[in-house]
């Protein structure tokens, strides 16, 4: 555990990507199995121990530290695991520290009853850095500036294998990845995943920004406002994965018995309706889809009221053949052929947007405002399907955002790097004429769109304009206007205003603007999609 803790600390303080890769690669080379496999899991997808939650740690500490002092400390530090690692009263003569594998074994067998005693014993065996590493590992999600991709790249670098191969095998394997290490480090045969219904990494797009492309080389499709999914059938089983590779099959059981052949397809998951693309588009707003997301079980009524379908974008594997090296245009042909064999109730194909030239396409894009479509996708006709975001192949060309002026109402401390700043802002619009005494109603929340320098100023504004405190939340005197950018706005019960924005971010801070000049709810209401 000491080496792992030292690695975590070194990663926390390392800015350079290359240095992070070097540190992880070195650890993976020098550490025996299965410790390194568990460490790799912790750094990439994270481990899950159901008995150990952030609240478990909090309760554990509350038994040993005064609750008020705990809360003040936690608020300042901004991270439960770190606060606990700093406050844990270490015994005078700590027993020998556990190895990573021993810690994982002990964490795995903990249950709600035993966790208090067992986790305490484990913490007693570690120093402050060790406790931090253990608690981070135990609660999943290290949040130390290492992405899953970076960890895999470091693995590839450590053993001189291709990272794309690592990605390909990854989702068919489980921690501590014995087969992966056997293949990469010992030269054994690669893991066999052909007959497993595993997730294949998505191809992603770059923002188009100022680039202009020739439509002879690029095809355009609408960027639909649902969630990107991958439907996989292999080895007699079908599974549905979200963009991050999470298995969401249970939430959408209607797709589990519907592909007639072994295949891996890429598409947008939508709910039937007529908001996106009008009658012809046949898709409801994102809001409708949201009713279906995150459910563990699905009622028949849900299935009937919010019928989901997949709008197909691409095909990766088809009847045992890997289509990914082939050009997009060829895959598109295969996809169309496949789509014609699939039931219309559950599938359609994302149609190609026809335009005479780029200028014409630009006009079509402008006109898409009402359609609650996110914008356009541009795909190079000869592009293979490559995992990740590769420059020059796929572009996303989002619509320009909508803008309204809102008033800052509440602020909350951020997490991670921003933990000591008030960086999460709730803002509102006027429910009528402010000069006649109208109230502000919250319409959204944002924590991005500003620079670090802005953040400091905003933090100072919140501190010196607080009128009320509710735990970690500060209510401000409502004197500051934000110009808020967002992609669309929908009806929602989440806010008192009955409205919710999609992707709100702070576009500009209007230090100059008097709050009564901010926009009204009715203005926002006219922007509702569809």
């Amino acid at each position, binding site marked *: 555990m000491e080496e792992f803790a030292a690695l975590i*600390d070194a990663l*926390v*303080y*390392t*800015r350079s990507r290359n240095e992070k890769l070097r540190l992880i690669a070195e650890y993976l080379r020098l550490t025996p199995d299965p410790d390194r496999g568990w460490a790799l899991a912790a750094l990439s997808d994270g481990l899950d121990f159901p008995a150990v939650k952030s609240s478990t740690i909090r309760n554990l500490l509350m038994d040993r*530290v*005064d609750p*008020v*002092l705990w809360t*003040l*400390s936690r608020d*300042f*530090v*901004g*991270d439960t695991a*770190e*606060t606990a690692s*700093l*406050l844990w009263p270490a015994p005078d003569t700590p027993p020998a520290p556990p190895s990573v594998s021993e810690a994982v074994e002990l964490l795995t067998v903990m249950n709600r009853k035993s966790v208090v005693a067992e986790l305490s014993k484990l913490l007693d065996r570690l120093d402050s850095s060790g406790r*931090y590493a253990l608690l981070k590992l135990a609660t999943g999600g290290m949040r130390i*500036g290492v992405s899953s991709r970076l960890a895999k790249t470091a693995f590839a670098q450590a053993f001189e294998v291709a990272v794309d191969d690592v990605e390909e095998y990854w989702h068919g394997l489980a921690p501590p990845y014995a087969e992966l290490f056997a293949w990469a480090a010992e030269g054994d045969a690669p893991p066999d995943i052909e007959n497993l219904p595993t997730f294949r990494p998505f191809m992603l797009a770059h923002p188009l920004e100022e680039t202009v492309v020739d439509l002879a080389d690029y095809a355009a499709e609408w960027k639909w406002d649902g969630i990107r999914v991958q439907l996989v059938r292999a080895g007699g089983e079908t599974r549905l994965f979200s963009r991050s590779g999470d298995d969401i099959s249970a939430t959408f059981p209607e797709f589990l018995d519907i592909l007639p052949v072994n295949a891996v397809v890429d598409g947008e998951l939508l709910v039937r309706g007529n908001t996106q693309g009008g009658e012809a588009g046949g898709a409801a707003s994102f809001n409708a889809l949201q009713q279906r997301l995150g459910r563990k079980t699905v009622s028949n009524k849900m299935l009937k009221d919010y019928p989901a379908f997949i709008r197909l974008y691409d095909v990766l594997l088809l009847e045992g053949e890997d289509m990914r090296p082939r050009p997009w245009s060829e895959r598109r042909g295969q996809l169309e052929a496949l789509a014609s064999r699939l039931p219309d109730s559950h599938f359609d194909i994302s149609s190609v947007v026809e335009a005479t030239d780029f200028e014409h396409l630009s006009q079509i894009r402008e006109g898409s405002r009402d359609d609650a479509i996110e914008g356009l996708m541009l795909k190079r006709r000869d592009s293979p399907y490559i995992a990740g975001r590769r420059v020059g192949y796929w572009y996303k060309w989002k619509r320009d955002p909508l803008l309204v002026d809102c008033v800052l109402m509440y602020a909350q401390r951020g997490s*991670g*790097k921003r*933990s*000591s700043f008030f960086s999460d802002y709730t803002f509102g619009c006027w429910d009528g004429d402010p000069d006649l005494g109208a109230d502000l109603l919250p319409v959204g929340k944002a924590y991005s769109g500003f620079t670090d320098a802005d953040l400091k100023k905003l933090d100072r504004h919140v501190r010196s304009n607080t009128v009320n405190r509710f735990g970690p939340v500060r209510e401000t005197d409502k004197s500051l206007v934000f110009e808020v950018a967002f992609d669309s706005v929908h009806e929602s019960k989440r806010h008192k205003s009955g409205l919710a924005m999609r992707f709100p971010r702070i576009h500009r801070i209007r230090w100059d603007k008097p709050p009564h000049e901010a926009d009204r709810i009715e203005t926002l209401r006219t922007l509702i999609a569809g």
Partner: protein
Amino acid sequence: MAAPFSWIKPEPHGIYIEPADCWVDPSRAVDRALVTHGHADHARGGHGQTVATPATLAIMDLRYNTREGATAVGYGETIRLKGGVDATYIPAGHVLGSAQILLEHAGERVIVTGDYKRRADPTCPPFEVTACDIFITEATFGLPVFCHPPIEEEMTKLLDRLAAHPDRCVLVGAYALGKAQRVIAELRAAGHNQPIYLHGAMEKMCRLYEEHGVDMGELRLVMDYSKEDIRGHIVVCPPSALNDRWSRRLPDPITAMASGWMRVRQRARQRNVELPLVISDHADWGELTRTIKEVDAQENWITHGREDALLRWCQLHQRRARALALVGYEDEDD
């Protein structure tokens, strides 16, 4: 007969001593000021009369270019103010010249600590525990998460990192008054006898420390040397220069920062620090609570930092305490 302690008034801009018409560490210019130490949030320019230790006056002179109306009081010395108030300057162990001020009037004793620490510091005499009725304490690191490790451990961390990268340099961000000189003196105590390179803004204060008898070995200015010369050496700069263009003239610097805030990982990350050194000139939680116990005053007034937590500790330990809402104190990069 006036109510007990009614002669001492915590006001937003400082502690006001009414019979003497005099302020302690006022955050704006006043006619008469008693100053605990030279940090900018305690020592401001422009007072009519300033009473401080000789070293603090020298520091203020360097910063504000003013000697007018300065009255020097040495450690252990008492000065009689108007209205029958005596002020005694007692070592606070914070930085060169730093003092607690003991105020006595009508048989009542009040101590204003200014900033202080309880660890040994080669650049100033140690904090002296002194009995009093009201103890006005700072609380910069007034949270139980703050526990400054022994400075020797941090020096070892620094020297190990330097040795591991002979082709680079370690750039240490350290507060220009106090921290920088203490780090240099501690490096010397740890046996590091290589020249240490300084950012230009550090030079005058280091010279002032030398004039006050603190030996810092060979100091060189970065601007006088080439990248090659600096390779494998330690460079000390103010925290504000750590991520500034200035550091581009250095050979691939490893960014370090010497501060009590470095105990919290996210704080170090916010400053883009690669090598956090937990070194502070303020008392940590253990020192603060120990000092309150040892001084054992009737009442503790808490200011300058995280008052809430220390107030809570006093409650839990049945000690009378209140938080003062003084403005103008900053979390020094300390």
